[in-house]
């Protein structure tokens, strides 16, 4: 099938007045959420998801994708103006963005970040368009065995590639999976883990409840603790002359930006990697390959451009496995997946066949969102400077109320609101103790799929466990998964033996 024809059809959907308006609205909201220190794309999507009932499902997902996109742009704003990353994905942007702002070049740094985000977004959306259909075709051959193996692979990447403590990562994956089994057993239909017959647990624990708790309430508690003093906002003004100069400067570093985009896209596809490591890697490589590496960290425009291209590209990249395979690559895409399931749109290869209008509408809306984001971002810079002066206490109060009401709205049960508060406090404490939260949310979203595919395969194969290895694709996935899982232990043992040799000497 001709990708261009499908994309053209998609534009017919995404350029309809309502969807265009939704993209503009989503991007603007995302930009502000991303620009707020502490709140990133995942918090934005978690808090706004319950409010999207106001638009039809296919537009709702476009709205969320636009927020996601806008938040990736917005993250750079507080990195540059406050020196506090708007989200973890914008950490690398502070390295050179903050020095630039202190030298009075805040405007130029913001332009660089916006243009770089645009380049990263554009290249990655083109890559996305090229890869989506073939990957979906491949995924059509997947049976339950392959699905199980793929989910297993997604989890083991957190253990093998994730930077967090391995034991704590395993604990979080298991906790998410166990929480996903609450409710009715998928196969026999009997209730389980209802904790002494509490009726609220019969319908299970919604991913939304965990996400709002952890990323809404938990994040606010974290912000309260860490925000003792109000940060200093650096003023920024943008003139057309500066804009022209900025774009000219950016033209000279196209190599860095192209590389950052392509690398970001592929790193973003990996479940455990995503936008934060991608941006740090892009920064590191830009510094190493630069002719004047000593200027990095002191306000080099390349140091702003490289991480910003990579984090935007990575956020698009992480949409690819979510949409084509139904396996999200990041907590934010896990929330998008959960939202789609809630609206009756099950991501995966079948979506490309059954709902091509929706899929290509969404893909083409990424193009429009990208254009909208760069324009709105540069146009609204004075407004961001003003919004960043908003005291934390106002932001926290509003987010808390949105969490309470947003948590109530989908199920209309107070039980869920209590769970949100509980998850919020628990999530805050777990984060304080360095337990990674991304695998927890991902496990809760993927848990039902994992258990269902596992048990379906075994029932179909009369309990033959080897069925997972006998099929070539699932066998390969499981082999890689085992490798990822064993890798940290091998590394640990080797380090341990080396240490014991040293002490023996």
């Amino acid at each position, binding site marked *: 099938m001709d990708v261009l024809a499908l994309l053209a059809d998609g534009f017919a959907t995404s350029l309809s007045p309502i969807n265009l308006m939704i993209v503009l609205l989503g991007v603007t909201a995302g930009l502000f959420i991303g620009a707020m220190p502490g709140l990133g794309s995942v918090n934005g999507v978690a808090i706004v998801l319950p409010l999207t*009932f*106001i638009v039809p499902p296919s537009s709702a997902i476009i709205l969320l994708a636009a927020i996601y996109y806008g938040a990736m742009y917005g993250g750079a704003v507080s990195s540059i103006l406050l020196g506090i990353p708007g989200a973890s994905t914008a950490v690398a942007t502070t390295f050179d963005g903050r020095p630039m702002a202190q030298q009075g070049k805040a405007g130029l740094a913001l332009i660089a970040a916006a243009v770089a985000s645009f380049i990263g977004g554009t290249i990655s959306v083109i890559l996305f368009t090229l890869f989506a259909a073939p990957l979906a075709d491949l995924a059509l051959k997947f049976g339950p065995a392959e699905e199980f193996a793929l989910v297993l692979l997604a989890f083991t990447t957190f253990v093998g590639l994730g930077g967090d*403590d391995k*034991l*704590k990562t*395993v*604990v979080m994956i*298991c*906790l998410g*999976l*166990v929480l996903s*089994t609450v409710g009715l*057993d998928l*196969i*026999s239909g*009997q209730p*389980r*883990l*209802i*904790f002494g017959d509490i009726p609220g647990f019969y319908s299970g624990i919604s991913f939304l409840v965990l996400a709002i708790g952890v990323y809404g*309430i938990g994040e*606010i*508690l974290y912000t*309260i*603790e*860490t925000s*003792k003093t109000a940060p200093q906002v650096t003023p920024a003004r943008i003139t057309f002359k500066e804009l022209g100069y900025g774009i000219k400067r950016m033209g000279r570093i196209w190599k860095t930006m192209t590389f950052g985009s392509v690398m970001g896209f592929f790193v973003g596809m990996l479940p455990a990697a995503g936008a934060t490591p991608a941006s740090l890697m892009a920064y590191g490589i830009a510094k190493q390959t630069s002719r004047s590496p000593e200027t990095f960290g002191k306000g080099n425009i390349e140091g702003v451009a490289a991480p910003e291209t990579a984090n935007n590209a990575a956020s698009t990249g992480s949409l690819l496995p979510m949409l084509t395979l139904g396996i999200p690559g990041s907590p934010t895409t896990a929330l998008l997946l959960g939202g789609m399931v809630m609206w009756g749109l099950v991501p995966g290869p079948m979506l490309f066949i059954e709902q091509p209008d929706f899929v290509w509408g969404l893909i083409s809306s990424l193009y429009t969102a990208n254009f909208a984001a760069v324009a709105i971002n540069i146009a609204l810079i004075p407004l961001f400077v003003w919004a960043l002066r908003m*005291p934390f*206490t*106002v932001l*926290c*109060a*509003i987010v*808390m*109320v949105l969490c*309470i*009401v947003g948590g*109530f*709205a989908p199920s*209309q049960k*107070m039980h869920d*609101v*209590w769970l949100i*508060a509980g998850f*919020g*406090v628990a999530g805050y404490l777990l984060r*304080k*103790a*360095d*337990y990674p939260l991304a695998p927890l949310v991902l496990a809760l979203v993927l848990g039902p799929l994992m*258990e269902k595919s*596992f*048990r379906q*395969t*075994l*029932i179909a*194969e*009369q*309990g*033959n466990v080897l069925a997972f290895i006998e099929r070539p694709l699932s066998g390969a996935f499981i082999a890689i998964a085992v490798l990822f899982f064993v890798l940290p232990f091998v590394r640990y043992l080797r380090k341990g033996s080396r240490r014991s040799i040293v002490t023996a000497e």
Partner: protein
Amino acid sequence: MLAGDRIIAGAIMVLSVYFMIHATALPIGWNGETGGPGGGAFPFWLSAVMLLCSSLILLRSFGASARASFFFDMSMLRPLLMVIAALFVTIALIPIAGAYIAIPLFLFWYLKIFGRHGWVLTLCLTLGTPVFLFFFFEATLKILLPKGFTEPLFFPLYAMFF
């Protein structure tokens, strides 16, 4: 603060055991007839892995080279506990007094007393938020928020919008 790490690891261990006990309500072993594990197997064995890993984390914290990952700024404990308490009080109040009393009260407390903001800002947000919530959730989405004993006051509004 190694104690913080230990308390959290211990709490996860207790939680795992609690999950395991509840998971045994359904068969946790291999189901010979249909093939594959029983309904309780997934939660039971995953909780067992969780128990094992959290025990290892706890044991590790007693090792000689253990370093604390849990740090806490004690001066922020009071405001943090106050916000958590306010959150729980608000949620408890919603079914009794209704969202339109509990949420403005929460906002008033947070902005005026906790945040020490001016009257203009406090009143704008405290009074504006319920109006927004009503029009967004009730009038547009037809999602009724709990009203508790204030329910009769809303009958005229319902008549206007539904």
